[in-house]
């Protein structure tokens, strides 16, 4: 059973997010602000707050498409995507998906991947901190158990794969960049984002490094992760596994280890 308060809140939410006027029956106008004007203030607040959030996250997308397109894009997003959290920083995760379905964006096939990179950057920035891993625990693992070793990686680590040169596009849009043009024909790139000491870091990965890290992040044992490289072509599957593990340790991305029985 829905309470009177719950009903009023549902009606007000419908009025703020859409065009419903049912809530007006519950409202009284004040001397300086009619109830219609009052609801306009809330509707406008919502649009301004959500759009400014999207603008702060998707800066490169905005640079690529220009202001008119970007304003239309975030307007559509705000009209169709509800916020689901009282923490505003969670809003905007579905913009890459929206771009993939928009005919107007079809001429920029890499745009959705750029948006995904920007969302990953934002998520890495706000990801929880993780404690330092005690290296003695790794030293205590028996050599014969190493293949069965699984890792819990830092929540801030994000791995992306694109059919386009995502890292080069990202570099092109950094303030200090002098490169004029990215050759889209140079092929796909994989990217890692992480946060070793507060600041977000980014680097390109080879397909093999990406596959290895992705498998480990998803819970595979070291042996399973190395086996998963078999799905790649010979050239791509060449990975210096030790170097990747060393990088994880040095960049504080190892949170926990476990040995599968």
């Amino acid at each position: 059973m829905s309470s009177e308060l719950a009903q009023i809140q549902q009606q007000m939410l419908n009025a703020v997010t859409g065009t419903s006027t049912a809530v007006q029956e519950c409202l009284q106008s004040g001397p300086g602000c009619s109830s219609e004007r009052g609801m306009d203030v809330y509707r406008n607040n919502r649009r301004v707050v959500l759009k400014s959030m999207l603008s702060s996250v998707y800066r490169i997308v905005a640079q690529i498409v220009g202001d008119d397109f970007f304003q239309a894009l975030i307007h559509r997003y705000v009209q169709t995507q509800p916020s689901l959290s009282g923490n505003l920083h969670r809003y905007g995760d579905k913009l890459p998906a929206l771009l993939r379905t928009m005919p107007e964006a079809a001429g920029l096939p890499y745009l959705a991947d750029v948006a995904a990179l920007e969302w990953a950057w934002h998520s890495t920035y706000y990801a929880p901190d993780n404690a330092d891993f005690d290296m003695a625990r790794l030293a205590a693992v028996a050599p014969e158990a190493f293949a069965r070793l699984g890792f819990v990686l830092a929540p801030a680590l994000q791995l992306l794969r694109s059919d386009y040169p995502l890292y080069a596009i990202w570099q092109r849009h950094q303030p200090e960049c002098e490169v004029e043009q990215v050759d889209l024909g140079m092929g796909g790139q994989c990217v890692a984002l992480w946060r070793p000491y507060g600041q977000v870091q980014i680097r390109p990965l080879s397909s093999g490094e990406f596959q290895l890290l992705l498998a480990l992040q998803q819970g595979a044992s070291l042996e399973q992760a190395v086996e998963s490289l078999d799905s790649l072509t010979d050239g791509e599957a060449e990975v210096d596994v030790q170097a990747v593990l060393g990088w994880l340790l040095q960049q504080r991305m190892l949170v926990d280890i476990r040995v599968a029985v």
Partner: protein
Amino acid sequence: MTQLPIAVGVGLRGTHYRDFLADQAPAVPWLEAHSENYFGGGAALHTLMRIRERYPISLHGVGMGLASADGLDADHLRELQQLVATVQPAAVSEHLSWNRSGGQVINDLLPFPYTAEALELVARNVDQVQQALGCAIAVENLSSYVRFRQTAMSEAEFLAALVERTGCKILLDVNNIYVNQVNLGIDARQFMRALPVGQVAEIHLAGFSTLEDCLVDSHSQPVCAEVWLLYAEALQRFGALPTLLEWDIDIPPLTVLMQEADKAQQILQQAGAWQPMNREQKEHGDVL
């Protein structure tokens, strides 16, 4: 929990991080940080922890939605709990508003009818927050742009009843009651008279913008003359209290913010000797 100094603090905004971390720490007695900006971890929280070494911090939530009929968002409460445990702030506050219905959120401070049913619900939610945090929170009155036919008591009466039910404190936003006076016709002075003396823990000051006849609580301007008057009256009634100057849009350089805070500090110092009115005075009529 330590207490906020009885002095005028300012809102901590990203544009002023550098100022607060400079070799010469700006002379600000305390800072208020918006809790949600520091959920999770990383640079934002790291910066807040460095600033915290220099200044007492108050954590001010804008996303809990204490009056949401659907109840509190457990994730949100857990994140706040974690932040409070990490920062160990001098004070924690939230707004008397709702933000969530049917799984959707409006990231704003939305009003609701002040009824017995709502009091029951908000008291339950405040209890839940205070239990999770292990401390009393201060609940702030709202700037509203609509009012409801169903309302059975004033917002001030509602807050007074909430204090009695939950042991929470009141964060009195003087600008909000002025905005509501102009927009909705409430009486700002009557509002203050309805609040229990001794239960107001903090005062907020800010500036509004105008949209034709309507005042919008945008925190984008200096404090207006009428609000300065109300502030002095509030101090006379509730005693000298920690006060915050808020500025959220078109944020000026810190020096401008500090000049505005100085004006408040002068009024607060004049009130320094005042004690909250005692119960006898209250029962024999108000001086306001």
